């Protein structure tokens, strides 16, 4: 069976399992933290695996390969973060609402850097390619939409965190870092989506749409987690975990599609 189709089916099974497990297991079920933590470790590992295979398929070390390498490094760091989080909660039995920031947070924070760099490199490459950049009216709409998102996140999340006297400074730094870095990812992902939207239909468009929605899914989960975590209301079995898993799996699918396109080109066929 086609690898893309296989991974799509596996992804649907994993997401369905995630949702049903969370809906059916009681909140205090012993199994819940294991499902919650190990599933995100597994899905992040899937994204790392397929990103590596795609990165390795590029023969020439050009900016495109560099961008995919940066996405791979970012996802590796996310995988390590998920693993450390699971280790802390499941093996060392730490209450992750109290044990914040943890080792996992350091890896998550660093992970944003190569991911942002990857998007910037692709964006620069596109700008230098001579391909149409779109029109001012569309950019104005996109910028307007992004400003609304930034304003909402600032009002509902950033400002309350900054003004909260009960939150320690180190916690504030991390609580603020995440949504700010996530906003940067959202801006870059939406900008990339606008570029891809101009391409119309095609496998390349699908590759990037999967990647973009993958990152958007992760950042939405991150923003909700930041809010819930600051309110100390996040716990294992929260449905926002599904968004992380969906995000990792969409990125894996993007990598598979990209490799498929390059394999087809190498064979001399059409996408």
């Amino acid at each position, binding site marked *: 069976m086609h690898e893309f189709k296989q991974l799509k089916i596996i992804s649907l099974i994993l997401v369905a399992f995630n949702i049903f497990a969370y809906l059916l297991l009681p909140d205090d079920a012993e199994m819940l933290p294991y499902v919650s933590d190990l599933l995100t470790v597994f899905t992040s590992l899937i994204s790392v695996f397929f990103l590596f295979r795609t990165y390795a398929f*590029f*023969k*020439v070390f*050009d*900016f*495109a*390969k560099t961008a995919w390498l940066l996405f791979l490094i970012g996802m590796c760091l996310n995988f390590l973060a998920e693993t450390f989080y699971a280790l802390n909660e499941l093996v060392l039995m730490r209450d992750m609402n109290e044990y914040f920031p943890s080792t996992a947070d350091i890896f998550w924070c660093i992970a944003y850097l190569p991911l942002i760099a990857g998007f910037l490199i*692709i964006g620069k*490459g*596109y700008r*230098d*390619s*001579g*391909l*149409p950049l779109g029109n001012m009216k569309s950019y104005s709409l996109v910028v307007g939409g992004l400003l609304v998102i930034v304003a909402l996140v600032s009002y509902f999340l950033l400002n309350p965190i900054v003004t909260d006297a009960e939150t320690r400074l180190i916690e504030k730094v991390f609580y603020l870092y995440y949504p700010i870095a996530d906003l940067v990812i959202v801006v870059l992902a939406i900008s990339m989506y606008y570029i891809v939207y*101009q*391409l*119309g*239909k*095609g*496998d*390349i*468009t699908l*590759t990037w749409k999967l990647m973009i929605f993958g990152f958007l899914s992760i950042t939405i989960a991150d923003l909700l987690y930041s809010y819930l975590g600051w309110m100390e209301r996040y716990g294992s079995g929260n449905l926002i975990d599904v968004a992380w898993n969906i995000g990792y799996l969409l990125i894996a699918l993007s990598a598979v599609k990209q490799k498929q*396109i*390059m394999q087809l*080109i*190498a064979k*001399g066929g*059409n*996408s």
Partner: protein
Amino acid sequence: MNTLNNMYYNQIIEILSPFLGNIMAQGAVMAQCKKIGISPEKITKGDISKLAEGMKKALVVFVGTDGALSITERITRI
């Protein structure tokens, strides 16, 4: 797909469309034609290699240098 009364233009679009999408492929060809100072309706055999070279830059973004070379080689063989 929008076609012009130019065999080379149509064949280039046919090669590029599966990767860039039809709209972007047309945009890319028109942009390259403008760069080398010709209109898409007047593409000749002699313009193909210059157009292919310009296309390569566009394709590298999405399929890397090796993929871009492979596709542009098909364009130069028109």
